[in-house]
């Protein structure tokens, strides 16, 4: 509505709205915005409905198959294992004591200092030659070093054989880790990396349990991973 002078009609009658085109534009913008927001809200409601309906939002840790990482069950298994009495090279001791005994040389102050590590969990990273060097620097007498190493080797092998025997289970696969060795527990021995274990068990339902030791102020840990075999008679309901 333009008057003769090219002025908007609103100039003569101020109550009339002048900028109709601007208002139309804003209204259209808001209509579009409203539609977009409406569909976003619809999507939100569909999402919430799906979550609430499927129950996934309320899914707690899966208890199916009694296996979940860091569970109490795994910790109890490790405690029972470590407290089990065995005959270790002629002595009746627990597996816990056998582990400590096998580590006893490395927990000695002078040997530990020579190893140049801050905790005994890193012992696996120290090469055989460096370990030998640390023992030679600590014991001076080479014959003594040979004796100590032979004894340690014997203890380690015996410990391995005990673990193979104790962790023989038709329903579970185990991975054992201590500063001296680590590996998948198989009927023929203990070997392979944790990735080999994962590849073997093919499940994420792994119970991890850890026991910390403190001997002569030196700390190290023993870890046991266990996983139930998938399918078969172990999972029959």
């Amino acid at each position, binding site marked *: 509505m333009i008057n003769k002078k090219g002025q908007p009609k609103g100039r003569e009658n101020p109550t009339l709205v002048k900028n109709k085109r601007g208002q139309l534009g804003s209204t259209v913008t808001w209509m579009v915005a409203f539609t977009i927001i409406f569909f976003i*809200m619809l999507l939100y409601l569909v999402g919430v409905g799906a979550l609430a309906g499927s129950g996934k939002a309320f899914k707690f840790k899966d*208890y199916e198959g009694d296996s979940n990482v860091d569970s109490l069950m795994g910790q109890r298994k490790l405690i029972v294992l470590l407290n089990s009495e065995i005959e270790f090279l002629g002595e009746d001791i627990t597996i816990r004591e056998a582990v400590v005994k096998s580590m006893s040389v490395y927990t000695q102050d002078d040997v530990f200092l020579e190893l140049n590590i801050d905790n005994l969990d890193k012992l696996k990273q120290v090469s055989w030659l460096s370990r030998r060097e640390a023992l030679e620097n600590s014991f001076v007498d080479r014959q003594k070093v040979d004796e100590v190493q032979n004894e340690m080797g014997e203890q380690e092998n015996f410990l391995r054989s005990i673990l193979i025997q104790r962790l023989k289970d038709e329903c579970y696969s185990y991975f054992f880790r201590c500063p001296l060795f680590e590996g998948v527990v198989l009927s023929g021995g203990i070997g392979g990396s944790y990735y080999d274990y994962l590849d073997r068990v093919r499940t994420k339902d792994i119970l991890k349990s850890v026991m910390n030791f403190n001997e002569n102020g030196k700390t190290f840990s023993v870890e046991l991973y266990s996983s139930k075999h998938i399918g078969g008679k172990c999972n029959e309901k």
Partner: protein
Amino acid sequence: MNKMNKVGGEKILSIWWFFVLALVAGGIALGVFMFFSADIDVREVESGIMVNRVYDCLNNNGYLRGDVFLEDFDLYEECDINIDVFLEDGAGYYLNVSIFDGNINLFENHSRSEDLKTNCVIGQGIKTKNFPKCFFGEENFLYISEGVQKELVVKVLAVSDQKGRSLPLL
């Protein structure tokens, strides 16, 4: 005059603005209501917790606690479990604890509602919706008998039919 025009424009816009506000507020309220009014099934988790509780109560540093085989041993009292919910009529819970030395059953304690156990077993065999859920545990505990260390098998079965309710909004 310009001011008046602006006010007019805002009046038209405010309708849409109101719609958007109402839509967002209503949508959020409806979403929250839908989420919190969904059923929460805790039966299996509850059974698992119950089994773990019994194991932790019977376990003493890897050993089976010494007083289990005494005549006056009260599993529910020692494990701090409310016995009433197991023994009342139409109980929603069932608990069975048995201890074996090889094939010899040394200890057995179970609550009343055997039907819950049966229904749970059926529920595991076929697909059901409202059958009770159970959790079964089998663990080895150490035990010293006549100076000799033994490994006893402790089996615990917990069944729950307490499906739970919707979370209250207020």
